[in-house]
């Protein structure tokens, strides 16, 4: 399993450039939004957490749809399916490697973007914390889409469409926990705990559903 993790990580660093694409895309988004909002720094600070979260969500989508498709094209998927470790575990490990390869860099880059967006320290810390807790959920949900994409000749957009609606709860609670940390009356813990719960829920459901889809995609 560790071997699989390391291989996937190596591949994403060497070939896909997952990390850098994500961060650059993220930066592009953050660079463009101020044009819409105008030079109003306060407003920027206010929508900052939301923008960072949305950016993280969208850039996680970029390489996710080929998580299993690349494996199928070179025949590796067959061997992964035949192996005795439960498929759920294999999928979970692949998700983890993908997360480390693409989402973690985003989390690490987020303080920088927070600065760009004129957010204060609490907000930055809160965004980082919620991202680190919430972004795995996005990967796990995306894995289901990626598994479905294996049967589709070309995944791409269709997968994103199927996946995005499911990520809405993650986004809602991630953003609202961040705002709760900044704005006084609202308590931080309830939405944050819900976020944790969502991540745990999808950590269980996502790989299981993806494994189910992969098993049924036999051809």
């Amino acid at each position, binding site marked *: 399993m560790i071997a699989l993790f390391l291989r996937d990580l190596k591949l994403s660093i060497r070939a896909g450039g997952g990390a850098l694409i994500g961060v650059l895309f993220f930066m592009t988004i953050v660079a463009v939004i101020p044009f819409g909002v105008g030079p109003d720094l306060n407003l920027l600070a206010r929508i900052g957490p939301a923008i960072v979260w949305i950016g993280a969500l969208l850039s996680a989508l970029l390489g996710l749809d080929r998580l299993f498709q690349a494996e199928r094209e070179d025949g590796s998927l067959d061997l992964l399916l035949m192996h005795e470790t439960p498929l759920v575990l294999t999928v979970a490990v692949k998700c983890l490697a993908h997360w480390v390869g693409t989402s973690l860099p985003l989390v690490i880059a987020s303080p920088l973007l927070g600065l760009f967006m004129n957010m204060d320290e609490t907000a930055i810390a809160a965004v980082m914390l919620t991202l680190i807790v919430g972004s795995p959920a996005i990967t796990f949900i995306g894995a289901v889409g990626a598994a479905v994409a294996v049967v589709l000749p070309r995944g791409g957009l269709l997968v994103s469409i199927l996946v995005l609606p499911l990520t809405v709860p993650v986004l809602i609670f991630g953003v609202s926990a961040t705002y709760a940390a900044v704005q006084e009356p609202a308590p931080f813990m309830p939405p944050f705990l819900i976020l944790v719960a969502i991540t745990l829920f999808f950590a269980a459901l996502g790989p299981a559903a993806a494994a189910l*889809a992969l098993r049924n995609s036999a051809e």
Partner: protein
Amino acid sequence: MSENSLAITKFSDLANPTRFLTLVARLLPWMAGTTVLLFALGLYLGFAAEGDYQQGETVRIMYVHVPAAWLSMMCYTVMAASAIGTLVWRHPLADVSAKTAAPLGAGFTLIALITGSLWGKPMWGTWWVWDARLTSVFVLFLMYLGLIALNRAMDDPSKAARVSAVLILVGFVNIPIIKFSVEWWNTLHQPASVVRLDGPTIDPEFLRPLLVMAVAFTVLFFTLHLAAMRNEILRRRVSAQRRLAARMAAREA
């Protein structure tokens, strides 16, 4: 040879579309009749009733909006149940049921969305707000369309059914979000007043036509669903026979 037909006989005992078709042929006229009667009754009750003092005439939108909204969720539930049938029992009729429910669900969701907007303009002063209930219904609509697109993108029907079943089940998380969004978030939208634990809080004058319309919509849904399932079965039968014919021709040649 005999093993072949033996195996298939066993299979067809499990799921017998032929028997299903005869059943549908018997049921459909009755259901269609019931639908028409219920709609007549519901519309009569709805338009005979007084207008709401607060909402004025527009309360009549409720008689289509609320049943359509309920059905949009119920249809998804039907699909989720069929998805379980597909994955657990590998029942071919479950495949057909899930596939044919999606366009109907999209239709009812669209009705809920449009009538909701039409109600929102006089009541809230805007066609659309991005509150939790409205957006989650919109997301439901997108999911229906996504599932339809997914089904169209694959041409092996049984594989398509199994894969979309997985997605249907995962997407089921959206249903509780729609149902409870008004309670979890402060929204413009009305909280539940009919389907709630402590009994309906709505005026019986509005409740009666609403319930009749709800039943009418439900029967309409099942009528359409059965008919669509029949069509899908026929479609598959046609394609199976075409394939067989092509193979036979190739064999003789």
